[in-house]
């Protein structure tokens, strides 16, 4: 039928270049000296487990921080019109297109060895504050690319909020904080959950930023990369990346079930 013919090119390319390779990846993952146990390596082996844990914790912390920061800034920009608003909005969304490497570079410029903050603290306190090449730097980097995404989602959701609900709450005597807590946050919940899940998934799978900052930071994507490139441990790399893929896919499936459309992840 005609419809199948129209769909065929996309399906063929997808099967040939994603489905098949993925199947092979799964197979390779089980083909190493550990066999299928390689898939459990991420919980059984100390090194990989710590890598997974730090990645999860980092992603979770980034998600929480991003939601709070984007929530405040996003609601503020959505609800107020003032001179310079569009400019602020533009600066907030510009980093959307930055690949992880550029974000890493931005972090280096801020808190690296020759970074701005380092120079300022040296001038103020005589000691250079260098954060870039550690988890803190990574945290800042992840924050950097997460904020623009989440802010846009929150602003879009805030636009759809029914102002009448807040007015009703105020007419009943609620303070601004109570209105936020009892009306706005529940109203934004789907958007917060879905963008939070996307933020989490993106951070889990991010590679470029960590790569730029230092290849020694212990997050799972970097671990996978080392196994593959430095130790030629293909099966372990395959197994670990399948596990990582499953986790990120689960997080995004959660996001989708909580809200209609998705803003995509890319890092």
């Amino acid at each position, binding site marked *: 039928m005609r419809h199948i013919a129209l769909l065929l090119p996309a399906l063929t390319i997808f099967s040939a270049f994603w489905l098949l*390779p993925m199947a092979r990846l799964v197979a390779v993952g089980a083909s190493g000296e550990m066999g299928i146990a390689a898939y459990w390596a991420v919980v059984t082996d100390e090194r990989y487990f710590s890598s997974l844990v730090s990645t999860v914790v980092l992603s979770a912390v980034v998600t929480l921080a991003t939601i709070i920061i984007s929530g405040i800034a996003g609601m503020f920009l959505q609800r107020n019109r003032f001179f310079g608003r569009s400019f602020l909005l*533009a600066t907030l969304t510009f980093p959307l297109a*930055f690949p992880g490497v550029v974000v890493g570079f931005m972090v280096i410029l801020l808190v690296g060895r020759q970074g701005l903050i380092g120079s300022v603290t040296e001038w103020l306190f005589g000691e250079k504050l260098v954060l870039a090449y550690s988890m803190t730097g990574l945290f800042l980097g992840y924050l950097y690319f997460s904020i623009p995404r989440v802010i846009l989602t929150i602003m879009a959701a805030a636009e759809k909020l029914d102002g009448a609900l807040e007015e009703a709450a105020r007419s009943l005597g609620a303070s*601004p904080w109570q209105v936020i807590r009892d009306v706005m946050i529940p109203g934004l919940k789907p958007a917060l959950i879905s963008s939070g899940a996307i933020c989490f998934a993106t951070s889990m799978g991010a590679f*470029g930023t960590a*790569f730029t900052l230092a290849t020694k930071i212990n997050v799972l994507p970097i671990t996978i990369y080392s196994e593959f490139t430095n130790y030629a441990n293909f099966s372990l790399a395959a197994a670990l990346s399948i596990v990582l893929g499953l986790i990120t896919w689960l997080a995004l499936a959660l996001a989708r079930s909580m809200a209609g459309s998705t803003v995509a992840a890319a890092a």
Partner: protein
Amino acid sequence: MKHTKRFYLQLIFTVSVCAFLMIPVVLSILAGVTENFFIGISSGFTLRWVVEVWALYHKTIFLSIGIALATLAVTLLIGVPAAYVLARRQNRYTRWIEELMVLPVAVPGLATALALILLYGQFRGFRISWTFILVGHVLFTLPFMVRSVLAVMGAIDLKTLEDAAASLGATFMQRFLHVILPNCRQGILAGALMVVTLSMGEFNITWMLHTPLTMTLPVGLADSYASMRLEIGSAYTIIFFFMIIPLLVAMQWMSEPAKARKPSHG
């Protein structure tokens, strides 16, 4: 207009966030045009770094543009018809296909790249060609094109328009060219901008797939950050900004009037 204390607190907060995002950008631009970053602005402005970057990486930049355009061509050719089928037939299978298509975006690029290398790495010719990277980019950007076109198709009651054209005697090709495509123009355009922007900035997949002869702009950036002096990395970053900004502006502009210009039918 009088503003409350809360307003100013929030304003300061928001401005700080913007500063966090923008200051490094400004710094990198400055660094890229400064004679010597460590000395500072007093060392003077110069374009020599930009020129040097161009000498070192212009092939890379052209390859990036070429791949982005090729990605666009492929996603248009396979994505628009696919979106049409997904819009016309809404059943269990089409939902599965949509889910499937998003996987290369949901799953870390690293995994997709690894998978490709493991299966196709043995074909030397393919492995070292730019088409290897093209494949990765197409997989990653296809869902964006499809979703963008699908969104517009969903808004225009595709089926009835097609029935009307058919009732007037139009064959499928005629309907597709005269009625369906023109009315999806906005979705196609938005999708195209998205695809090109994503392709230009794609790193996670490309880093694994590239060879010294098939480097793209982001790969070159990583290379310059790691091995070149700060000024060169910054100058290269300036070139990247220069290429990305028009795309972002175009996307922004596209999404604004579209809200007011929703097609109405009666």
